[in-house]
């Protein structure tokens, strides 16, 4: 079942001066549990597409549906609340709150959701354990390496139990070891908790491990490839019985 569907999505910048088609008539759908990389050269529209999927930006035309809900009809306040409860974000520059510890950074989003303190504490510890940073939970971002900060950002993105996680160039600032560790963690979360990850990247290390690669060029989808041999098996509960 599709959790995200886009219909004839278009984003034109500078519409009245020199129109730039950042996204040009894209219709896509993403299934639950996907581990997808959106790739393409710089300026092809990867980040713009991700912003449209996450409701950070409004399309010029077309629609984005999340679990059948049309995101493009939401007011700016409603969409913020929708993002809080349904979408996780991982950014290239980590974007952690520097004055808070790793634990507080992860906990913050749950506090915004109004989750009680005890439940927050349990989930923070669980998430930081999963990303291998339980021992560093009381460290501030400035006391962590780039890779560790990005792992905290992943834990933060998952803290709100989102329907999917959008990651914009999450490995761009990381060395190969940190990239490998981060991708291992994300794949583990994808396999164990069926978390949907959608990346915008031009990092070959991410592409190698993605199970679906959508290639953009000039705002258009030029290739949409399912990597069959790596595709995660969809478990049918009926089959299990």
């Amino acid at each position, binding site marked *: 079942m599709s959790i995200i569907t886009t219909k004839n999505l278009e984003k034109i910048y500078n519409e009245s001066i020199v129109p730039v088609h950042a996204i040009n008539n894209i219709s896509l759908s993403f299934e639950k549990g996907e581990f997808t990389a959106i790739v393409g050269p710089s300026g092809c529209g990867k980040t713009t597409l991700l*912003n449209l999927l996450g409701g950070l930006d409004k399309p010029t035309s077309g629609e984005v549906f999340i679990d059948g809900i049309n995101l493009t009809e939401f007011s*700016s306040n409603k969409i913020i609340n929708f993002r809080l409860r349904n979408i996780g*974000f991982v950014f290239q520059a980590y974007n952690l709150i520097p004055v808070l510890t790793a634990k507080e950074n992860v906990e913050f989003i749950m506090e915004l959701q109004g989750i009680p303190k005890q439940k927050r504490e349990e989930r923070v510890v669980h998430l930081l354990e999963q990303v291998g940073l339980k021992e560093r939970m009381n460290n501030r971002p400035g006391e962590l390496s780039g890779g560790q900060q990005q792992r905290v950002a992943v834990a*933060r*993105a998952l803290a709100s139990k989102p329907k999917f996680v959008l990651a914009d160039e999450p490995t761009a600032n990381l060395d190969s070891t940190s990239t490998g560790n981060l991708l291992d963690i994300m794949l583990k979360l994808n396999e164990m908790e069926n978390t949907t990850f959608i990346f915008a990247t031009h990092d070959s290390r991410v592409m190698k491990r993605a199970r679906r690669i959508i290639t953009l060029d000039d705002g258009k989808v030029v290739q949409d490839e399912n990597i069959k041999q790596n595709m995660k098996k969809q478990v049918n509960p009926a089959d299990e019985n």
Partner: protein
Amino acid sequence: MLFSIAWKNVWRNKLRSLIVILSISLGLLGGLFYLAFANGMVQHQIDATIKTQISNIQLHNPKYMLDNEVKYTISSPDSIINKIEEIKGVRGVTSRIKSTAMVSSAITGAGITIIGINPVKEKNVTNLYKKIIEGTYLIPGKKYQIFIGQKLADKLKVKVRSKIVIAALDMSGNIIYGAFRIVGIFKTESTNFDLSNVFVLKNDLRKLIGFPAKQTTEIAVLLNDNNQTNYVANKIKKIFSKAISEKKYEVETWVEIQPALKLINEMFIQYSMIFLIIILVALSFGIVNTMLMAIMERVRELGMLMAIGMSKMKIFLMIMLETIFLSITGGAAGLFISWIAITITHKTGIDLSVVSEGLNALGYSSFVHPMLGLTYYILIGSLVIVTAITSSVLPARKALKLNPAEAVRQNV
């Protein structure tokens, strides 16, 4: 958590925050100290005027109030004094005979007010006996002594033991003369008072102008606490309501006797408050500028907060809280150092003797004890809070205008 993040954000750039806090503190110190200085000067003037010249409350014949003629008297002053002395809060009561007169020495003359007093009772009401710079105070029983101000002595070119002649109108309106010997010279904070008032024994003046026995022109009442002036005045009016309604005498407080004194006090405070408000407005621009800089530096972080789902209202509130915390920290520090500075200088006093002549001519003491009541600290503390809230709106609005999609990628 919003409060906690806002507080932590204030200290994100310690140096910048400390500079803002210091500027608020010093601005407040300047404004408050000026206010305390002006207040101290004026309060001292009021206090000195009450204790040296007019007392808190005076009783006169209503007609005397109009043209200051000695024939308009109050009868049976002793029984009035006895009743007033029983009122709680009254420190001393005395009666005086006052008349306009001319004083002349061998060199020159001057128009003055001659005041006949009982020196023993007068000591309970005025502190002139503490202002002697030469000679002594009036000695009971010793005839034809006169106690004059330094400025008048200088003008007449006389000194202690010099003889001067008083020319006054008697009760029938005839000019009479009397020679008095100077026993003492006083100097108050007001050169004008020193120039225009002389003191003699009540009995001497009574004999000189033929003033009737059991009569007086003025009853002066000194209180323990100036704040009780209206309360005691109302009590006196109540006790003597019949005589007052029959216009036998009138009760006036120092504010009614010298309204200019209160007006000057209020004017000083208003000027000082305007000065302080200008300081606060100037500081608010500094606060706004600092917070705008802080926001410009945190565009990516604010974009992230919007992206992950922090509502606009919470972001607005967070920026407001940061501005308010910064301003209030500066305000609290400013109020505290001002309180210390004012308390210390209140005890030690500030010596302005280099400009004493000018100050004394205006009736101010050349030794100022800055003072500020708790009400002013509360009022100014509230003004700091208002400034903080006002200053926070613009940076908070600026933060709200960010586009999260662009903000999260700034400088990436």
